[in-house]
C-alpha cells in the first residue's frame, strides 16, 4: 500500500567473493536504485522525443516523401529534437545565447524558484507516505494556505519582518487546517483519506472562488476574480538582487527539508510516525496511538503544503486567484514519489521538475512546443520509477537478489 515498499532496495550485497573489485562496483551501480532513477529519466526523455518528432510539422511533411528522399525526414527529426532539447537546456540551466553573466545564469535561478513550492509540498507528501497516508489533497492545502497567507499579506498592515512572518505562518495554518480535516475524519470515522482529500481539493477550489467574489477579497477596479497585491512588507525578499526572481522562500524550503529530515530520522515523533506507517498493528501493540499519528501527520503535511502556497502569493505572483495553486499539488505527488519520500531526494526531484517547468516558456518560443510535453515527461518518469522491474527489463539491468522476490 504505502510508497515505502518501493524505497527499500539499496541493501548491501553480502557475498560475491570471487568477483573482481571493479566488476563488483559496476554491478552495484547497475543494481542500485539511483541507476533505475537515471534510466527512468532517460527513457522518459526518449519517449518525449518520439512525441516531439511525431508532432513536428516539418517531420510529417518530409515523411510523406520518405522513400524518395529519406535524408529530409532525418534532418527534420534532428532539427525538431535539437531545438527541443537545447530549448530545455537554455530554459532550465544556462542561457547559452546570453550576453551577460546574469542573463546566462538566470534560467538556473528560475529553476530554483519553480522548485521552491514543489520542495515544500513534496516534503509534506513524503512525510505522509512514510506514515502510510496517501494525501492527494496537497492541491487544496496549497490553495487554502495561499488564501490565508495572501489575506494576511494584503489586508493587514504591519512592520516589514513581522508582516512576512505572520503571512508565512498564515499559509502554514491554512494548509494545516485543510490537512486536519481528512486527518481527523480518518482517525475518528475511518473515512479513507484518498477520497476525502480529493473531495476537499474541489471544495477548497470553490470556496476560494466564492471568497474572491466577495468585496473583502476582490481587487478594486478589476473585473477578474483576483485579490489585491500583497503588501511589500509581506513579500519574500529577493535573495540574489532584483533581477532574479529567486526569493527567500527557497532558503525556507531548504530549511524545511532539513527540518523534515530531523523530524523523521532523529525525533521520537518521527519514529512513531514511521512505525505507524510501516506496520500499524505492531505500532498499536507497542502502545502508539494510530489516531493521533494520523492527525499529526496530516496536519504537518497540510502545513508544508500550505507553505508551498506562500511561494506564489508571497514570492512570485504576489496575489491570489483561483488558479494560484496551478497543478502544484499533483506535481508535488510526482516529486515525492521520485524523491522516494526522503528530504534530499525530494529537493533534487523538485529541482529536476522545477527545471522542466522553467523551460516551458523557452520551449514555446524557441522550439514552438507546448508546455504540456513537460507534464508528459514528468508523468512518464514517475510511472517508470514506480515499476523498477519494468525499467530493468527495458535496459537489461540486473535485478538485485532480494527484488526477485518482492518487486516494488
Amino acid at each position, binding site marked *: 500500500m504505502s510508497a515505502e515498499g518501493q524505497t527499500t532496495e539499496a541493501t548491501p550485497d553480502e557475498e560475491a567473493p570471487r568477483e573482481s573489485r571493479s566488476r563488483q562496483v559496476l554491478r552495484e551501480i547497475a543494481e542500485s536504485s539511483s541507476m533505475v532513477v537515471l534510466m527512468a529519466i532517460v527513457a522518459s526523455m526518449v519517449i518525449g522525443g518520439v512525441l516531439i518528432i*511525431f508532432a513536428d510539422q516539418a517531420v510529417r511533411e518530409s515523411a510523406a516523401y520518405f522513400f524518395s528522399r529519406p535524408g529530409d525526414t532525418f534532418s527534420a527529426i534532428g532539427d525538431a529534437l535539437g531545438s527541443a532539447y537545447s530549448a530545455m537546456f537554455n530554459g532550465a540551466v544556462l542561457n547559452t545565447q546570453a550576453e551577460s553573466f546574469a542573463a546566462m545564469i538566470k534560467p538556473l535561478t528560475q529553476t530554483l524558484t519553480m522548485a521552491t513550492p514543489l520542495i515544500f509540498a513534496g516534503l509534506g507528501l513524503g512525510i505522509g507516505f512514510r506514515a502510510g497516508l496517501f494525501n492527494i489533497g496537497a492541491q487544496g492545502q496549497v490553495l487554502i494556505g495561499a488564501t490565508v497567507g495572501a489575506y494576511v499579506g494584503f489586508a493587514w498592515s504591519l512592520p516589514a519582518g513581522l508582516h512576512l512572518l505572520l503571512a508565512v505562518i498564515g499559509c502554514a495554518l491554512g494548509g494545516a487546517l485543510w490537512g486536519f480535516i481528512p486527518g481527523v475524519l480518518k482517525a475518528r470515522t475511518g473515512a479513507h483519506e484518498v477520497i476525502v482529500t480529493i473531495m476537499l481539493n474541489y471544495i477548497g477550489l470553490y470556496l476560494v*472562488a466564492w471568497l474572491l467574489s466577495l468585496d473583502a477579497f476582490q481587487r478594486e477596479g478589476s473585473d477578474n476574480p483576483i485579490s489585491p497585491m500583497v503588501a511589500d512588507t509581506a513579500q519574500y525578499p529577493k535573495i540574489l538582487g532584483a533581477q532574479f526572481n529567486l526569493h527567500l522562500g527557497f532558503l525556507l524550503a531548504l530549511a524545511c527539508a532539513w527540518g523534515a529530515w530531523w523530524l523523521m530520522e532523529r525525533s521520537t515523533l518521527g519514529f512513531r510516525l514511521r512505525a505507524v506507517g510501516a506496520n500499524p498493528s505492531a505500532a498499536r501493540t507497542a502502545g502508539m496511538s494510530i489516531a493521533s499519528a494520523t492527525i499529526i501527520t496530516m496536519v504537518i503535511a497540510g502545513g508544508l503544503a500550505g507553505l508551498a502556497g506562500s511561494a506564489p502569493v508571497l514570492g512570485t505572483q504576489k496575489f491570489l486567484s483561483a488558479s494560484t495553486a496551478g497543478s502544484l499539488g499533483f506535481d508535488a505527488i510526482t516529486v515525492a514519489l521520485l524523491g522516494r519520500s526522503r528530504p534530499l531526494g525530494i529537493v533534487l526531484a523538485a529541482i529536476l521538475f522545477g527545471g522542466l517547468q522553467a523551460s516551458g516558456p523557452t520551449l514555446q518560443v524557441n522550439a514552438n512546443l507546448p508546455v*504540456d510535453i513537460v507534464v508528459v515527461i514528468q508523468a512518464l518518469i514517475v510511472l517508470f520509477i514506480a515499476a523498477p522491474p519494468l525499467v530493468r527489463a527495458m535496459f537489461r539491468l540486473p535485478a538485485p537478489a532480494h527484488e526477485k522476490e518482492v518487486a516494488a
Partner: protein
Amino acid sequence: MTATVADAAPAASTAPVAAKTWRSTIALAVIAVLSLVIFGLGTGSGSTTTFVVARGTDFVHLPDFTVPSRVAAIVLSLVGLALAGWTGYRANQRRKVGLWLPIVYGMAIMGALLTWAGAGRDATSIQLTGLLTSSLFLAVPLVFGALAGTLCERSGIVNIAIEGQLLAGAFLAALVGSIAGNAYVGLIAAPIAGALVGLVLAIFATKYWVNQIVVGVVLNMLIVGLTSFFFSTVMTENGDLNQPLGMAKLPIPLLSKIPVLGPVLFNQNLLVYLLYVAVAVMQVMLFRSRWGLRVRAVGEHPKAADTVGINVNRTRVRNTVLGGAIAGLGGAFFTVASGLAFGKEMTAGKGYIALAAMILGRWSPRGALAAALLFGFADALRAQLGAIGSPIPSQFLAMTPYLATIFAVAGLVGHSRPPAAEGVPYKK
C-alpha cells in the same frame, strides 16, 4: 411532486437488522428544519412561484402551474421532516429504510429550494422539464465513469484514473470522428482509448504491484499532458482533425410522448440510450450472474477465489480494461455526443465526481446511477439558478457533490464500505 410520497411509502418491506444509529435521522432532521426556516419562513407570504413543466414542442402540452411560495415551501419541508421522523422510528426498531426515502426526501427539499428560489419572480419561472433534461445530460459522463469505477473496484483494483479514461475517450472520439467525418465512428473509437488507459493501470497494478493510487494519479497527469500536447500541436495545425460533430436526438416512438418524463428520458441521443443499457446490464451481471459472483469474490477475498480456481489477476485485468472502455465511452459525451470539438482538459474533474458517485452509490450500478443523477441535478440547478439570479452563491451548489461524498465516507449519513481487497495486489 408531493404525490409521489404516498405512492412510495409501502416500499420499505424488506427489513434487515441494522445497528441502532441516529446519525442519519439527525442529519435529515437538521436539513429539513433548515429548509423550513430558510425556504419556508424566509419566503414572503404574498409571493408565488411558477413552474413550467412542458415545452412548446411537447406532444402533450401541460399547463404551467403556479403555487403560493411560502405555503408550498413549508409543506415540502414538513414532508422532509416527517421522513426524518420515519427514519428515526425505523432506526429505533433497528431497521433500515428503503432506497425510496432518500430519493423522496431529496425531491421534497429540492422542491422547497426551487420554490424559494423562484418566489416572487413574475418575469421568470422554474423550467422543470429543462432542469430534468439537463440533469440527465450532465449526469451521463458521471454514470459511465462511476460504472467503470464500480467494475474495477469490485474486482479489487482502485481506479483513480477515471478522469484520464474520460479524457482519453473524449480525445480519441473527436480525432477519429473528425477523420471519418462521422460522430458514430468517434463513438466506437472512444472505448478503445479508455481501454488502453485501463490496460496500463491493470498491468502496473497486477504485474508490477505498484500502488494503484499512484498509477491512477500519474496516469491522469499523463493523459492530460498527452492530449493537451497533441491538441496544441497536431490538432491546432490541422483543424480538420478536431471538428465539432453532433449526434442527432433519436426520439423513441410513443415513449417520448409521455408528458414530462417522455421528452426527458426518451428523446435523447444514442449515448444516453447506451447508458440505460449499460446500467441495466451491469446491475444484473454483477449481482445475478456467475461472472459477477466471481468478480465480487476476487474483490472481496482473492485467496478464496483463487482456491476455487478463479484466476485472480486475469479477472482483474479484464475488469479494469472493460471498466476503462466504459469510462472511455463516457468520454465521448464531452466531444461527439455534445457536438463540441476537443478542448484542453475538457473533462475538468468530472472523473473525480464520478469516483464520488461510485462511493455514494455504494459500489453498485444502480446506486451509481442515482448518485450521478443527483450530482447532475446539482449541476443543472446551478446553471438554472445562475440564470434566474439566486441568493445562493453558485459555488456552494457546486460544492454539494463533494460535501455529500465526504459525509458518506465519514459515515455521517449512511455508510459506504468498499470491497475488502480493494487496492491490495494479489501475490501468490
